[in-house]
């Protein structure tokens, strides 16, 4: 996988805390055997109930950097949620905090999850709303986000940041390398060796 060190994208403001994965992708769209086509259903039910939802707003149609509240992605572990956001063009998310399974799923897809203070996030939202065409730059090396000439600090979990910076966010290759050690480790676990040891 290629390293991700900078993400340059227009912003999408999505204020609100505890936005769960059932809202990101309602369960009825999980009746599928591939992730294809999930992008168009992101936030489908929220959009139906809120005519001004940013995912329906032409101003933000080209956005790729989502700015949102606390505990984003809580609830169901469905990878369909980050898959649908990714397929809708989202490449980075700045939130107050993330639910852990969601953040882990994002990292596996190469989508960057950064956190920022409430002040920084409300400034970002203000600047995005003032000029939706402004390109924001999320810099994973410097841990900053820059938009409209202003630069703010962000934070990221070390593991996720390293994985993206080194391009090692597809863990499968790394995990496969250790097959012999895995087999050996299994022999030392009592229940995997039939409680003989």
């Amino acid at each position, binding site marked *: 996988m290629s390293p991700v060190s900078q993400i340059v994208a227009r912003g999408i403001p999505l204020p609100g*805390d*505890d936005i*769960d994965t*059932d*809202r990101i992708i*309602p*369960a*009825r769209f*999980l*009746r*599928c*055997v*591939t*992730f294809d086509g999930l992008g168009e259903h992101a936030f489908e*039910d*929220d959009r139906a*109930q809120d005519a001004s939802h940013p995912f329906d707003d032409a101003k933000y149609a080209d956005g790729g950097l989502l700015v949102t509240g*606390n*505990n984003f992605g*809580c*609830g*169901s*572990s*469905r*990878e*369909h949620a*980050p898959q649908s956001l990714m397929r809708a063009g989202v490449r980075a998310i700045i939130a107050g*905090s993330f*639910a*852990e*399974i969601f953040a*882990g*799923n994002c990292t*596996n*897809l190469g989508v960057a999850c950064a956190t920022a203070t409430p002040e920084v996030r409300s400034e970002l939202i203000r600047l995005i709303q003032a000029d939706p065409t402004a390109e924001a730059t999320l810099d994973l090396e410097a841990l900053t986000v820059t938009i409209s000439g202003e630069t703010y600090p962000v934070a990221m*979990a*070390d*593991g996720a940041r*390293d*994985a993206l910076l*080194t391009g*090692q966010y597809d*863990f*499968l290759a*790394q*995990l*496969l390398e*250790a*097959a012999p*050690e*895995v087999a050996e*480790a*299994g022999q*030392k*676990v*009592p*229940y*995997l060796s*039939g*409680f003989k040891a």
Partner: protein
Amino acid sequence: MSAPNLFDKVWDAHAVRTLAGGQTQLLIGLHLIHEVTSPQAFAMLRERDLKVAYPERTVATVDHIIPTDNQLRPLRDSLAEEMMEAIETNCRDFGVQLLSPENGDQGIVHVVGPERGLTQPGMTIVCGDSHTSTHGAFGTIALGIGTSQVAHVLATGTMALAKPKVRKVSVDGELGPGVTAKDVALAIINHLGVQGGVGYAYEYAGDVFRNMSMEERMTVCNMSIEGGARCGYVCPDETTVEYLRGRDAVPTGEAFEKAAEWWLSLASPEDARYDDEVHLLASEIEPTVTWGINPGQSIGVGGNLPDPAELPEGERFAVQEALTYMGLEGGQKLEGTPIDVAFIGSCTNGRLSDLREAAAVVKAAGGRVPDRVRALVVPGSQRVRAAAEAEGLHTIFSEAGFDWRQAGCSMCLAMNPDKLQGRELCASSSNRNFKGRQGSPTGRTLLMSPAMVAAAALAGEVRDVRSVGAAAVA
């Protein structure tokens, strides 16, 4: 120097090596899979020409999409049928055991794992499902994972994980009459908040957990994730050992004694080390009902709803948003609110003891579900259903006007035909009250214990189960 807790011990027993990014490559002892989060993972294996590394550690079931009224094949919903066929094909092609409806083995993944004894203390257990935390009741590290990670575990028998911190959550004293494991779970989430557990595994301890049955422990561990925790567990004890004795996948004879000895040795010692500790008092927990759109928004059934006007500015918006969605008025009582639907089931409360408790309330309350209320009882597995029928529970429910269904996730989430319609208000024994969770984008959910759902179903409104009859809730 303080001693390692259960989490440390199980983690260390399964750590293979440290990866470049600092995560641990963790050996997985049991991988449970279901039809929703596995097809894309099998596709990734096919793409890369990989096999399932340890098919003997992998077990599949079908639960989310399966209808609970008529399970005859082909399923009427062609998308659901396609998913059924996909998991059947994948299990056949990759040599994975499928607990299928035809054999009477099927059920919700977090019900069938424990009931067959697949779930055992000291294991690392994963499933592409957030409520995998349920299996922590046995003293395991049990985690929900995403589909890419499902592929990792299938292909390697391991996954990459950063070790979480451990918080000991103690509940001491004795629960009052009518207060159940579900109320304990809701009270913990209310106390610590829906994101209070982020970064933590929870060790549940204290008198209340010591005295709980395994099924009750499962109910609390199940909802760990709703409080933001990555997983939750209870240390194994004699209750755990006795529950497991004689179950299908559990060793027998001398091997069982050896296993039991190892299981018990894993329990956290008195002087174990924790990153944080929290104490709650059992006497302060009441039969609890959620009123909002996340599982932390709850009150004791007799209490008043929060009034946004009286809250600090920072909290007002979220409370108002929830009350507006729910169509409730701040400051009012929740008790007495009419319901449209009653749902007893799910991986939180769809086990035999849950159905027994609900049936006891039905018997004590007498009467019938009013015509305007739809009431469903959905056993968590085919075995739970058979056991309940052997005790005649289905007759108690049916005669009182409940619909007695076949096993599955049913109305816990909107992936099968059991759904709320429009703005229906549902008293539900499930675990999530998110907007739209039960199938209608505007549907509304009140989470509560199965006994409370039974009381609400018969009254047609939210009721305090303690008012129904002391016998039922003792």
